[in-house]
Each structure stands twice: as structure tokens, then as C-alpha cells.
């Protein structure tokens, strides 16, 4: 596993008015590592994602993406970032191909390069045959696959996924979980996966447990189990979040 740091969060805090959403967050993600950001609803996961993607500005603390400060070098940082948001962000009235070509144009890819990458990514996710279908005609699992393909078109170094499997059936969830872990292991991609579903965690994953805007634990699965003196992730999560359900 490479030791190269792909995403670095240092002393990050954020408030909505007087309400603190994130409180001195610190953690790092390395290339080739899949980090699960585990936290109950309202833990601050989506706020953290909005800060990493610069939808909100960082007022306190630092975020670096492959060495680029997200606040100061926003465009260089965003060029290396692929994102799958919690809500679907596809245009329902456009086809799969049109949605992906739109994204490719936003990243400055030529038509030829875009078409090659679209074919490759859609084939890997078994969606190439459906490229002319409108998003509205696809089920939730297939829409998610299109969003993952889209997030990978510009070959990002860091992939963010904000609860991408919510509302999906078990086979769809499993295929997405497997594919994203494959990307981290075989494509040397750094993955940050926000979730509250414990069964999405692999034994080799890195864990960050977020609760009420604070990092409660940070390390490998074994580290977190030891730290919380637990025998299972479920138990650890329960203890670290003081009894709140995952």
C-alpha cells in the first residue's frame, strides 16, 4: 500500500450560524486506501463533503487534496476529485451518454477521449448497453452506477461517496461496495465513503467514526476495535456514539 497522502484534513471546524457542525476534525487518507466515514445521521458527514468539494468555504482548518489547498488552489484540487453525492445529481431528462458527456465537457475532455472513457467505465459497470436510455428509465441501482462511472471519467485520485447505497436492494449495494473497494485496491485510488451501514466495511478498510461533529475514532478496523474495547464494529460504533443507532 502506498503511503502517499491523497486527502488531508487538519483541525477543521464549521458552524451553521451558532450551531457547530464540525469540531476540530483531523484525519488523512492515503492512495490505495478505502476509508469509511461512519456516523449516524446529523454527524456532520455531508457538511464535511461540502467542505472538501468547496461548496462551502473553509473558515477554520485546512483541507488538502494531493497537496493542493482546497481553499487556495480550488481548481487544481477539484480536478483530482470524483464525487458521488447522497442525492442523485443526474439530469433525469437526458440519456446516460448525454449526462456523461456533459460531465466530460466540464472537465475539458475532448469528444474522442470522452467517448473512449465513457465506454470503458460503462462497460466495467455493465451499463454500456443502456447508454442511450434516459436516466428516468433506470432503477436506483443503475443510476448509482452511472454516477460512479461519471465520477471516474476524469481519472480522479480521490473518490468521495456520500452514502451512495441508501435505498438500494442488497445485490445492487453489494456490487457497488465491491466495485469501489476494487478501485481502491487495484487503481490506487483514495476512497472516502460516508456511510451508516456497518456491513459495507471490509476488514482492510480504514475507519473514521464521526459523531456530533467530532472524530471519535480513527484507524484500521482492528485499531478501532481495540480502542473501543469491542468485539465487533457494531458494538464499537454503539459505544463510540453513546448508544445511537448506526
Amino acid at each position: 500500500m502506498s503511503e502517499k497522502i491523497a486527502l488531508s484534513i487538519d483541525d477543521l471546524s464549521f458552524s451553521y450560524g451558532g450551531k457547530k457542525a464540525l469540531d476540530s476534525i483531523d484525519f488523512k487518507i492515503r492512495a490505495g486506501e478505502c476509508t469509511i466515514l461512519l456516523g449516524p445521521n446529523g454527524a456532520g458527514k455531508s457538511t464535511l463533503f461540502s467542505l472538501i468539494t468547496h461548496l462551502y468555504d473553509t473558515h477554520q482548518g485546512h483541507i488538502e487534496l494531493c497537496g493542493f489547498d482546497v481553499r487556495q488552489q480550488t481548481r487544481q484540487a477539484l480536478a483530482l476529485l470524483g464525487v458521488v453525492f447522497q442525492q442523485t445529481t443526474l439530469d433525469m431528462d437526458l440519456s446516460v451518454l448525454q449526462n456523461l458527456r456533459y460531465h466530460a465537457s466540464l472537465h475539458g475532455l475532448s469528444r474522442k477521449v470522452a467517448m473512449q472513457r465513457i465506454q470503458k467505465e460503462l462497460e466495467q459497470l455493465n451499463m454500456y448497453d443502456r447508454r442511450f436510455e434516459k436516466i428516468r428509465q433506470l432503477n436506483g441501482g443503475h443510476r448509482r452506477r452511472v454516477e460512479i462511472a461519471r465520477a471516474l471519467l476524469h481519472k480522479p485520485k480521490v473518490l468521495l461517496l456520500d452514502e451512495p447505497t441508501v435505498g438500494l436492494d442488497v445485490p445492487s449495494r453489494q456490487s457497488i461496495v465491491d466495485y469501489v473497494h476494487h478501485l481502491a485496491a487495484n487503481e490506487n485510488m483514495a476512497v472516502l465513503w460516508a456511510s451508516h451501514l456497518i456491513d459495507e466495511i471490509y476488514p482492510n478498510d480504514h475507519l473514521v467514526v464521526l459523531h456530533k461533529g467530532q472524530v471519535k475514532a480513527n484507524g484500521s478496523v482492528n485499531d478501532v476495535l481495540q480502542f473501543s474495547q469491542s468485539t465487533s464494529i457494531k458494538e464499537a460504533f454503539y459505544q463510540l456514539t453513546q448508544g445511537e443507532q448506526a
Partner: protein
Amino acid sequence: MNILHYWRAMWGIIGRELWRFVTQRERFISALVRPLIWLFVFAAGFRAALGLAITPPYETYILYEVYITPGLLGMIQLFNGMQSSLSMVYDREMGSMRILLVSPLPRWFLLLSKLLAGTGVSIVQAYVFLAIARSYDIEAPWQGYLWVLPALVLSGLMLGALGLLLSSFIKQLENFAGVMNFVIFPMFFMSTALYPLWKLQESSELLTHLAQYNPFSQAVELIRFALYGQFNQTAFVFTLSAFVIFMLAAILGYNPSKGMMARKGGAGG
């Protein structure tokens, strides 16, 4: 980051907007029906009630339908600007706006591209409306149809920028009804779109001033003069200034550190 990247991104945004417009047939029809009702029903009814003196750019007595045609072109662009604004709020609520905002380009450029796309759509609507009007003998000189293009570009940008600015302030889709009541209707009715300034002067000095300094009036006058091959410098400077002010304010509104976006709460975990 090179110029080709900007070029591709801009055409990607414009192409998407035009494609959406072409495929949304209801939107196209409703955008045309509204001004056509004003032209063929309202104007026909008011033709007898409103006597119009000869005022520039007109050199002869004109029918009321001829007078309100530039105003209705402005109306098309006003509603289109607000429609774009509405779709921005919708996109933000639904999430697709995020994909635009997290792309590696300056935010001002993304907003300007979005604005150009909306303006392009409004110009297509305006020319279709002019073609229908001409087929019913509501005509302008042939060269006027060419001269009106730059005027429509500027007025479309100005009204689109206003929509963009409003969308940065509107938190939820439901609040959009307020925009209809507090922006669209006052702007449209307190303008020279439906009646000339001297007609308003007969009834209220205050209304005359409000109409005179209403950016929408200036955009309509710019269109009106251009349609008759004339350049209205005051209207041009006024419309251009309003565009610059609205655009700068909209960019500020969408700036994550300074604008309204920063003060809005996030949903989810």
C-alpha cells in the same frame, strides 16, 4: 487549465440547456403562448382604448400590437430569466447544481456560461415569436430583425443575471411565488412594455420615474429602437450597467465564502 477546457465546458453547458429546451415541448409552447395571448387578445382589446402619438423610433401612427411587440420580446426574456433562476433553485435542491459547481473551473465562468445558455434559449423563443407576429402583419423593417439580435443578447443577459442573482437568495422552490409577485409583475407593469412613458405621465409622476429607471423598461426600449434599425444609447448604457451590477452580485451570491450559499445549512449526515 487551458482555453480549450473553457471552450468545451461552455459548449457543454449551452448544449445541455438547448437540448433540454428542445425536448421540453411544454416549456417551449407555454413560453410562446403567454406573449401571443397578450399580442392577439390583450392588444386587440386595448387597441381602441389607447391612442398612441407618434414617438421615436416610430415615424408614423402605429397599431397598439406594433407598440407592444418589443415589450413582449422583453417579457419572453424576463420570464425566461426567471425560469432559468427557478431551474437553478430546483437544480440546487435536487443536487444537479453541485456537479456544475464542483467542476474545476472558476465559478464566475460557470455562472456566465449558464447565463449565456439561458440567453440563447430566450433568443430562439423571441425569433419564433417575431416570425408568428410577422405572419399576422405585425412587422418591422427586414434589417430590424438583424439589428435586434445584439439588443436581445444584452437584454437577455441582463434579465438572466437578475434571475441568477435571485436564485442565489432563494432557499427553497416554494419561495419562488414571491418572485412572481415582487419582481416579475412590478417589473413588467411598471415599464414601457405596455404603455409609453408619456401615457404614464398623465396619471402619476412617481410611476413615471419608477418606469423610467426600471432596467426592464430600458431593455425594452433598446429592443424597440433596434427593431427599427436605431441605436438607443441611454437604454444601452443603462441595460449594460444593470447587467454588470446583477452579474457581479450573482457571482458574490454564489461565492462559497461571501455569499448566501455559505449561510445555508446542509442536509444529511
